[in-house]
C-alpha cells in the first residue's frame, strides 16, 4: 500500500454542448496522501465540482474524460461501470450541497442508511439496522435511535447533512469528498458540521477533499489548498504557506474580496472587475488575464503552467505577487 491515496494528472473533462466543446477541467494535476485534507477552492464554473465527479465516475455521458486519476493504485479513467460501482462507496464517497435533494423523501432515514450498508456488504436487516444506529451516533445526531424511524422532512438541514455523512461513511470509504457540504447551512451549523468532518477524518484516517468557494473554510480545516480558475489549478500549497505567501493574483483577489470582521464599516472591498471567462471560447493565454491587475502581453499569448517555484508551492503565473504586496 503506497503512501499516496489519490494522484490526478493532466485531467481534462470536455462537455459537448451545441456542437461546441466546453473544457470544464483543463489539465488538473494534484495528489493527496492517506488521511490528508485537501481543499479545492474556486468560484462557480471553475471546474472544482466536475473534477470531483470525475473521481467518483459520476459524469454524464456527454463528458469526455482524459488524463489519469489513480486512486489507491487503480486507474479510474476508463474503468468499466461495474468496477466503478465497487469503487464508489468503498473507495470514495461524496456528500453534496443540498441534503434535501440527496435524500429520498419517501423513505425513513434508517432504511436509507441500511440500503447504503447492504449495497456494499451482506448484512441481515437487524445487523444493518445496528450499524445504521452506530453510524448516526458516529455523526452525533441527537436522539439517533428515534431518528432511524423518521423521514427526512422531520429533520433540520443540519441533521439531514449528518444523515448524508452517515450514508457516505456506510462502507468505510478511504476518501470522502464534501462538495460544498456546508454551503446551504446556517453559520453555526456549518461550523458544527465542519468540526464533525474533521473529527471523523482524523478518527477514521480518511482522506478528505473539501470542495468550496470559501477560502475561510479552507484556512481553518485543510492541510493543503488547490485554487482553481476556469478549469485549471492556478495555485497549490500547504495551507499556511499559501495564506502567508500568496503568489497567484487570482488567489490574492479572492482573499481580498472576503469581508473581514476587522474591516471598518463602509470601507470599500478590493474587487477585481469583470467575470470568469466563457469556457466554450478557448482563448490562448492565462484565463485570468482580462481581470488581472498585473497582466501583460505575455499573459495574453502564453498560458503559464502550474510549476513548483518554491518547495511545495506551485503556481501558474508569469508575474506572481510578492510577499506583503496587495494586488
Amino acid at each position: 500500500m503506497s503512501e499516496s491515496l489519490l494522484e490526478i494528472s493532466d485531467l481534462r473533462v470536455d462537455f459537448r454542448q451545441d456542437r461546441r466543446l466546453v473544457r470544464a477541467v483543463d489539465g488538473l494535476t494534484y495528489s493527496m496522501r492517506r488521511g490528508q485534507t485537501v481543499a479545492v477552492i474556486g468560484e462557480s464554473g471553475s471546474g472544482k465540482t466536475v473534477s470531483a465527479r470525475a473521481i467518483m465516475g459520476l459524469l454524464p455521458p456527454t463528458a469526455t474524460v482524459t488524463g489519469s486519476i489513480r486512486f489507491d493504485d487503480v486507474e479510474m479513467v476508463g474503468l468499466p461501470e461495474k468496477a466503478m460501482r465497487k469503487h464508489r462507496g468503498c473507495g470514495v464517497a461524496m456528500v453534496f450541497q443540498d441534503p434535501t435533494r440527496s435524500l429520498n423523501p419517501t423513505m425513513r432515514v434508517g432504511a436509507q442508511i441500511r440500503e447504503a450498508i447492504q449495497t456494499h456488504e451482506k448484512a441481515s436487516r437487524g445487523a444493518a439496522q445496528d450499524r445504521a444506529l452506530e453510524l448516526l451516533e458516529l455523526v452525533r445526531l441527537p436522539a439517533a435511535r428515534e431518528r432511524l424511524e423518521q423521514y427526512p422532512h422531520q429533520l433540520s438541514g443540519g441533521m439531514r447533512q449528518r444523515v448524508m455523512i452517515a450514508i457516505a461513511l456506510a462502507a468505510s470509504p478511504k476518501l470522502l469528498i464534501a462538495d460544498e457540504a456546508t454551503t446551504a447551512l446556517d453559520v453555526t451549523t456549518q461550523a458544527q458540521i465542519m468540526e464533525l468532518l474533521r473529527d471523523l477524518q482524523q478518527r477514521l484516517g480518511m482522506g478528505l477533499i473539501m470542495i468550496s468557494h470559501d477560502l475561510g473554510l479552507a484556512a481553518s480545516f485543510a492541510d493543503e489548498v488547490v485554487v482553481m480558475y476556469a478549469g485549471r489549478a492556478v495555485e497549490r500549497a500547504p495551507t499556511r504557506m499559501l495564506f502567508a505567501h500568496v503568489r497567484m493574483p487570482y488567489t490574492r483577489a479572492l482573499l481580498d474580496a472576503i469581508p473581514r470582521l476587522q474591516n471598518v464599516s463602509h470601507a470599500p472591498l478590493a474587487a477585481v472587475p469583470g467575470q470568469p471567462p466563457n469556457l466554450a471560447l478557448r482563448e490562448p493565454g492565462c484565463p485570468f488575464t482580462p481581470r488581472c491587475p498585473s497582466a501583460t502581453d505575455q499573459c495574453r499569448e502564453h498560458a503559464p503552467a502550474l510549476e513548483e517555484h518554491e518547495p511545495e508551492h506551485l503556481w501558474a503565473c508569469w508575474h506572481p505577487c510578492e510577499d506583503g504586496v496587495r494586488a
Partner: protein
Amino acid sequence: MSTGAPLLDVRHLVQEFEVRAQGGVRSGVVQAVSDVSFTLAKGETLGLVGETGSGKSTLARAILQAPRPKAGEVLFEGTDLVNLRGRELLRARRQMQMVFQDPFGSLDPKWSVTRIVEEPLIAFRTAARAERRRQVAEVLDRVGLDPERYGDRRPRQLSGGQAQRVAIARALALDPALIIYDEAVSSLDVLIRAQVLNLLERLRSELSLTYLFIAHDLALVKQVSDRVAVMYLGKLVELGPAESLYREPLHPYTVALLASIPNPDPAAPRAPVAKTIQGEPPSPIDPPSGCRFRTRCPRAQEICATQEPPLRRLGEGHFAACHFPVSRDSPAPAAREPARLAGGTHDAARAD
C-alpha cells in the same frame, strides 16, 4: 448620519402564522416575529443577522405590510403603515423597495431587462413612455449595466451578478427612500459579491438611501452597516453600533455567531464552536420559556427558563436581551423588574 425623526420606526411588531396539520386541524402558531422594536435613521444602514427561521425575512415583509403584521406599529416618515389602506398604502410602498436573494426567481424570465426595470414606472404611471425609457437607461447605467448592450437581454442571458444588478435597478427605478436587501448578495460568487457590495455602497452615498441589510453572514453585514441587529427565533437579542457589537458582543448568541465565522487566516487561533453553542434552533411553534436561546446557551441559569430577559441598554446605543450578558456584568437576577442600566459600568462580580 441621523437627523431628527427616524425614517422608519418599528414598534412592538408581532407576526404569527397558524400552521395546520393534515385534515385542517390547527396544530400551532408559529411565532415568527415577537415584539420587535427598532428605528432606522435617514441615510443609515441597519444590518439584520440571524439564522434560518430567526424571522428576519418575515420582519422585512411585515414592515412592507405584505402580509400585514399581527400587532405593532410601523411608522414610516411618521405615518403608521398598519392603518393605511388602498391608494395611501401604495403611495407609501413606493418609497420602500426590496431586493431578494435569487435574482432569477424574482425576474420574469420572458421579459427584457428594459421591461423589468420599466415595470414599476408603468405601475405607478410616473411619466410618458419616452421619459420612462430615459429613466430606465439612466438607472441601468447607475448600476453598471450598459443599457445599449443589456436592455434587450432576457434574464437567462445574464450572469448571477448581472441579474442582481437588474433587480437593484428595478428597486431604484421609483427613487425610493428605503431599500431592504434580503440576502441579496448571499448567492453570488466571492469576486462578484465584492463588486455588488461596492455598488450598493456607492448607490447609498450617491442617492442618500437608507438600507435594511439582511444577511446571515456577520462579516458581510459589518462591511456595510452602521448598526447591527441580531435576531434569534423571532426575538431581537442584540442591537448596537457595528463597531462595538463586533468588538464587544453582549449576547451569548452573537458570540456564537462570531465564533462560527471561518477566519481566512490559518495562523489565527480558533476556538471550537461547540463551546459557544449547542444543538440546533428549537421550533418557533413552541419556543422555550423565558429566554428563547437558553436551550443552546452555555451560560444559561435557572432564571433564564422562568423570566424572559428584556432588551436593555448596556452601553452607548448598545442593547441586549440577556440575564448574563457576556462582556459586561449584569445586575443580580434577584430583582423582579431588572433595573435599566444607564451604561455598562459594572465590572465586579462575574469575571469572563
